[in-house]
């Protein structure tokens, strides 16, 4: 506790205590700290090197990509991007557009359906709630392969193959139960008094949900939106089975085309379009980091 005497007059928040103690560390501690940082920096480099290599390689002429593995040398050019954009018979913008549509539909669906269900689970008392809640948690762990074939048959019977509906409609029916759970946890954390006050003022559940709960749960909604964005953008299996014609492909399936065409491998173009496909994910990561870290810490979603 003596460390507190060195502290400035303001009361330090709890998590700063260790930093403060660091202020008077022994030489042995500093040596340990230096080693730790060296280790962590090496690990950081190992972790991001493949990503940086991808970006740099996408900017190199095809014949130079594998001749040297350094990320600092070589002539840089945008040729791969120009060529890659059109090398899949349709311009890459078509696939980007498809992915965007899928993402928007999925985000709206998840936000609407999961918040409704979460409000019911967290705030309403109705018959069978606990049983439903247990079932909901169970569906999170259920491998989707068990419903794969019948779902495919349903969508085929509905004439929805080659449309985005099989990939969007389930979101409007809260099939991503993870987000229900995340929102339930969040609503339970809100002070009960707010809801009681609204009740006393005569507000019905629709009002309490729309005007009290939703505005308060913006962080949970943002987390849901960002994770839905990232997962939908990266989803490969769904589009692979429901979309077979090129003009419907999202980015993930379009990228597969570069792997299929092994005979005429144009690595530069493949890397360039890979980078293009990662940019939206990277932006979501930068903008939503705060929510991502919180969301993942609460529920363990990836």
């Amino acid at each position, binding site marked *: 506790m003596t460390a507190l005497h060195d502290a400035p007059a303001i009361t330090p928040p*709890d*998590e700063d*205590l*260790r930093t403060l103690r*660091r202020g008077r560390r022994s030489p042995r501690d500093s040596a340990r700290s230096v080693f730790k940082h060296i*280790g*962590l920096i090496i690990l*950081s480099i190992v*972790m*991001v090197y*493949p*990503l940086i*290599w*991808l970006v740099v390689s996408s900017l190199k002429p095809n014949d130079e990509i*594998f001749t040297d593995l350094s990320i600092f040398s070589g002539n840089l050019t945008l040729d791969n991007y120009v060529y890659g954009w059109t090398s899949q018979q349709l311009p890459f913008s078509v696939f980007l557009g498809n992915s965007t549509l899928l993402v928007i539909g999925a985000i709206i669906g998840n936000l609407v*359906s*999961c918040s*409704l*269900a979460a*409000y019911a689970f967290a705030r*309403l*008392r*109705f018959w069978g709630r606990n049983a*439903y809640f247990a079932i909901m*948690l169970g*569906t*999170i*762990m*259920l*491998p*989707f*392969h*068990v*419903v*794969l*074939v*019948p*779902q*495919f*048959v349903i969508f085929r019977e509905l004439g929805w193959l080659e449309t985005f509906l099989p990939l969007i409609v*389930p979101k409007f*029916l809260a099939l991503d*139960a993870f987000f229900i*759970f995340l929102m339930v946890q969040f609503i339970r954390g809100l002070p009960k008094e707010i809801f009681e006050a609204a009740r006393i003022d005569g507000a*019905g559940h629709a009002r309490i949900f729309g005007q009290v709960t939703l505005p308060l749960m913006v962080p949970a909604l943002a987390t849901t939106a960002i994770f839905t964005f990232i997962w939908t953008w990266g989803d*490969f299996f769904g589009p692979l*089975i429901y979309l077979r014609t090129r003009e419907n492909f999202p980015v*993930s*399936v379009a*990228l597969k085309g570069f*792997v299929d065409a092994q005979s005429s491998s144009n690595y530069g173009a*493949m890397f360039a379009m*890979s980078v293009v496909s990662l940019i939206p*994910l990277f932006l979501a*990561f930068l903008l939503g980091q705060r929510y*991502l*870290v919180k969301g*993942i*810490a609460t529920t*363990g979603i990836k």
Partner: protein
Amino acid sequence: MSSIGELRKIARRPRGTAGAASKSAYPDNKAGYLFLAPWLIGLVVFTIGPMLASLFLAFTDYNLLQPPEWSGLDNVARMMGDARLWNSLRVTLVYVLVSVPLQLALALAVAVLLDRGMRGLAFYRSVFYLPSLLGGSVAIAILWRQVFGKEGIVNGFLAWFGIEGPGWISHPDYALATIIILHVWTFGSPMVIFLAGLRQIPEMYYEAAQVDGAGRVRRFFSITFPLLTPIIFFNLVLQIIFAFQSFTQAYIVSGGTGGPSDSTMFFTLYLYKQAFTELNMGYASAMAWFLLVIIAGFTAFNFWLSKYWVFYDD
């Protein structure tokens, strides 16, 4: 905090006098079902209904074109004799049993290294977390094909030491290892969960232990690890369930073949091929239920084992 903790609580809750409960115990019945309607419809139409249907299809011969034909236990018998299926199960088991513990151990080790309030914490956390966000994408799987290619980064690095690396992706002995490494590379998301868990441990425990003269190792095994076991357990259960279902990486890295020599033919990849390439929808349904049984078995075993090592404070 965790969904598994929730399930435990529900299971433990004493079965009260539910039958005798008066109507006023459920004042929000109408609103409740109204708000829950989308989820309930989804549950019936896209989960429970399809589960029953797939259970039925598992005992039929069905190719999408003709109506399903009852075949009794033929699919089960066929699974028994299907060497490719057993191989795919072996590949998947190796993947799950190696990659999940490795990933979690690394996540825990790095999380413990990243003290709260240390310099650069936010930076390290971002750098380690980024790969787990991107790791599931096709682009990263494509990148992996090159990283471990004959002329890829890994072999380039080995060449510095005069070692001539194999074509990792194209060699049946190594191809699966590259996908395991890809999985370990995404240790960032469990790491973030561990970091959150570490924050919950009161600082005074460590201070008291330090006063008592406990060293770093002792403090880890006497305080950190026991208090973190519920979170480790939570991660372990979920990561195993998810790892059994991995698909994209194996598909892309092997160019959709599961090769070389079926060495990356994951169970899910074989199931996909049976369903959508061979149109053996009945057989694929039987496989799906087999997968469910295996995953449920692993999860149940995990819960049973948890009695001996997971420490609950409550």
